[in-house]
């Protein structure tokens, strides 16, 4: 007689680590089956599946955090669940749940592909080999692209198509870069790739730089794309009908979190090795360009939504500066500061984007009366990394790490980015509450009445409360998260 329990028995810890993804994968499959007939079932199913997997991911993160950081490999050699990946998984799943709950359009199949995108991003955060990386990016990009298509208004379809093309090109570049870099190092493993290349000094000097650059640009293109397009004006100049803002938040805030967890693993290397120095040089340039480009582009955007979307690129640049010293032993675990920064950024960005259209639809007098404007303003202060919201803690940690490693160009970049970020996020506060109201339409010119949904405001308020508690109290990331040894 076959014992079913024995057949499916797996080591307890590995199973615990794995089950969030099993539930999510099952959710995607069941959601696809449920999508055959129109109706709200796919969305309800996905919401329930995401809630369950978030709870399971949270439990396994708490398990992992106790004691020394374990690097479990539940899906073979291609994926590894270390503390940063476990934490990123919690954030990805929780954000996906909030996004699905706040999507207002009737196309419920979009939530299924969004769950597929979440699965891809989780794999990305766990990828340990070039093969795993490619699989993860393919799932993440195709899921996100399909979700964007489902929730884009007709005016926004060309923008989504352009993004899809950009992402495909990026994926191709990533595949080339990953394959060639792995070939140079003699293994598909991402961890220690730079060290392995350092053992082969006879290789052409520029080859690794070219291959890594190719892969890096590809990764950036496929994951970050050109975010401004999602909030671009349609032919009628009506930017509001392009894409659901919750989805804009998903596309701009969550991929960087997964990326940060991946880079945390990739940069586990000795900084003395020449390839690592080379990678750090590339990173400095990339961080500078993303940071300056993102924030400066945000400054000239005509709407709050576009400003938030573009500023996300600047935040990614800011986070990248943390990896400049990832290999050094400077008191914090490699890459923990940038990961913390993005973990704080993701809920703030989501909260702000969930209610941004509500804020834009309010007249000046109403802005000063409504809870929505207070919540939005507080989230902007958080995004600007000002106390008492949580943004200041990772920024502080980032500077600490860079200074302790004597990396002054990186510290200068962080300062410039923080200053620009303050400018980008605080200037709308004045426009929001200006007393004369000379730019805000009133009366009939104000357009349709309030469009805010109570659910979105309550979600944003809850995220704000989380950020406030995190900013004032002890960070939940320390030290149990395993990010700080």
């Amino acid at each position, binding site marked *: 007689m076959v014992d079913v329990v024995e057949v499916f028995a797996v080591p307890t810890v590995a199973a615990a680590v794995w089950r969030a993804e099993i539930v999510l994968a099952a959710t995607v499959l069941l959601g696809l089956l449920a999508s055959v007939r129109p109706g709200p079932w796919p969305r309800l199913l996905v919401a329930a599946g995401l809630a369950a997997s978030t709870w399971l991911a949270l439990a396994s993160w708490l398990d992992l955090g106790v004691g020394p950081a374990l690097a479990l490999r539940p899906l073979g050699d291609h994926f590894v669940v270390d503390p940063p990946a476990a934490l990123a998984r919690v954030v990805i799943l929780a954000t996906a749940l909030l996004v699905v709950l706040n999507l207002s359009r009737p196309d419920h199949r979009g939530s299924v592909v969004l769950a597929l995108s979440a699965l891809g991003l989780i794999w990305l955060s766990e990828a340990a080999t070039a093969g795993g990386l490619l699989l993860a990016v393919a799932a993440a990009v195709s899921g996100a692209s399909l979700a964007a298509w489902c929730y884009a208004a007709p005016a926004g379809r060309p923008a989504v198509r352009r993004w899809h093309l950009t992402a495909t090109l990026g994926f191709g570049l990533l595949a080339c870069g990953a394959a060639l870099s792995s070939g140079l190092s003699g293994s598909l493993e991402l961890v220690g790739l730079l060290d392995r290349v350092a053992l082969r000094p006879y290789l052409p000097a520029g080859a690794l730089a070219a291959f890594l650059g190719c892969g890096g640009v590809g990764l950036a293109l496929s994951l970050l794309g050109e975010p401004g397009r999602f909030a671009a004006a349609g032919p009628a100049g009506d930017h509001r009908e392009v894409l659901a803002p919750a989805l804009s938040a998903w596309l701009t805030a969550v991929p960087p979190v997964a990326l940060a967890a991946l880079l945390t693993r990739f940069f586990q290397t000795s900084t003395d090795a020449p390839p690592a120095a080379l990678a750090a040089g590339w990173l400095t340039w990339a961080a500078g360009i993303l940071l300056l480009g993102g924030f400066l582009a945000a400054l000239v955007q005509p709407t709050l939504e576009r400003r938030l979307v573009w500023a996300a690129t600047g935040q990614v640049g800011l986070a990248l500066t943390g990896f400049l010293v990832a290999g050094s032993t400077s008191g914090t675990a490699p890459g923990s500061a940038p990961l913390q920064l993005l973990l704080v950024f993701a809920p703030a960005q989501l909260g702000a984007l969930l209610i941004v259209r509500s804020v834009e639809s309010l007249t000046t007098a109403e802005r*000063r*009366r409504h809870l929505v404007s*207070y919540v939005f303003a507080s989230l902007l*202060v958080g995004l600007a990394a*000002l*106390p*008492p919201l949580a943004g*200041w*803690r990772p920024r*502080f*940690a980032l*500077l*600490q790490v860079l*200074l*302790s490693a004597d990396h002054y160009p990186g*510290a200068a970049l962080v*300062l410039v980015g*923080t*200053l620009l970020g*303050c*400018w980008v996020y*605080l*200037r709308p*506060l*004045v426009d929001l*509450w*200006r*007393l*004369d109201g000379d730019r805000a339409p009133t009366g009939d010119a104000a357009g349709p009445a309030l469009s805010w949904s109570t659910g979105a405001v309550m979600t944003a308020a809850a995220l704000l409360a989380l950020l406030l508690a995190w900013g004032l109290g*002890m*960070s939940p990331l*320390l*030290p149990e998260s395993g990010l*700080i040894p």
Partner: protein
Amino acid sequence: MLPAHSLSWIILLPLGGALAIFLLPPARREAIKTVALCTAALPLAQVLVLLVRFDRVETTFQFVEHYTWAPLLGFEYFLGVDGLSLPLVAMSCLVAFLALLVAWSVEEGVKGFYALMLVLETGVLGTLCALDTALLWLFWELVIVAMFLLVSLWGGEEGRRSGRQFLLFSQAGALAMLLALLALHQHVVNPLSGGPTFNLVLQLDQANHDLWLADPSVRRWIFGGLALGFAVVVPVFPLHVWQPRLHRSAPLAIPMLAAALVAKLGLYGLLRLAWPVLPDAAAWARPLVMTLGAIAAVHGGLAALGRRDLAVILGYGSFSLLGVALVGVGSFARSGLLGAGHLLVAHGLVYAMLFAAAGGMRDRLGHLDLERWGGLYQRAPILGGLLTVALLAAWGLPGLAVFPGVAMTLAGALGSYPAAALAAVAGLLLAAGWSSHVILKVCLGEPAPGLEATPPLLGRELAVLLPLALLLVWLGVYPRSLADLTGATLAYLVRVVGG
């Protein structure tokens, strides 16, 4: 009996008031104003108790509260006051309370205005009491954000431009300061834990500085970062360009707070942190500090002479007197530092009174154009008289609060930098010039059109101006009451910086 956590109560009560205001409906303006006034009155009462209980001989910090906050990042919740900070805390509580009364006529955006005033008060008080440099920086950021919003939202079109400049300058300064604080943190060792620390008391002890900090060039860079952060809010020449625009259109409670509270933080920061932690770098920067002080004293006086708007004149006058105080700070001599310590308090009281009186004038005629004013003595003799007292105090008339500070400052600076002392004297002469011009234009002559229809003096105006006038006279006649409080701490500071 002294309640536990006195300093925490003093700092956090205004913030609690701001939160309470947040919960009130905007239409209930009187309730909002009353809540604000009550929550500002409580810290004032509490600080009076602290003034009585303060041990004037002791040079260490008193009423200390020390808790671990985030040990892995090195943060501590560490508060305390000494002879340098306690008078400023008392003055800040008083001026913040009176500023709320001055702002009583604000009718637009009352809820946000009063809430932000209270947040600003919390930021200022927290900065003055913080003994952990990370905590100090957090309160500093609170001041910057609150000030930026107040200036930008209630300052009209000019205020918006002024706010943008203020944000850029102060945030750049704050980040430079943060970099310097982090550099200090990395290289000051906590003897108990063996790790780096933000603890200011440990940073003051040079024995805790590691070898990296022994390099003079490193210490100068760190000092530069700290000084830049503090200089923006004083403001020091040429970082003052955001200030004049603010005065033209903002409700005068804002410049009152900017001059009496926020500006003090810059000089306080220099005396509390930059000078004693890095005395050799301070000595290196001393000529520059004296030069900037001298330039501010003269430039402020000259700029005030050429203006017609009383609020702008007062802004430049405040800038000039702070330049004199900066000369005292840079003198490194006992009398110079005592003078600067005295001026920090006296300047706050004088300019709070002047801006409050100017606010009353603007409420009457809607403008502060000197050419269209006159006859205040005839129509509102008490208001005119109190304005005159403040104007006389502003240029250092003996018997009023500014004079002892100026005299000690000049005595300290003359020995080492006579040119800077002469520039300070020139600034005071120019102040005499613009003060007498203001008295001539505003108080004398025929009453301005429309002045007859206005009340001679409101009760709340008297409640604001009279206590300030009495304090100006008290500190002018009996300066020792303040010197007793600050003397021991400043003498310790002089020993540290080797004056």
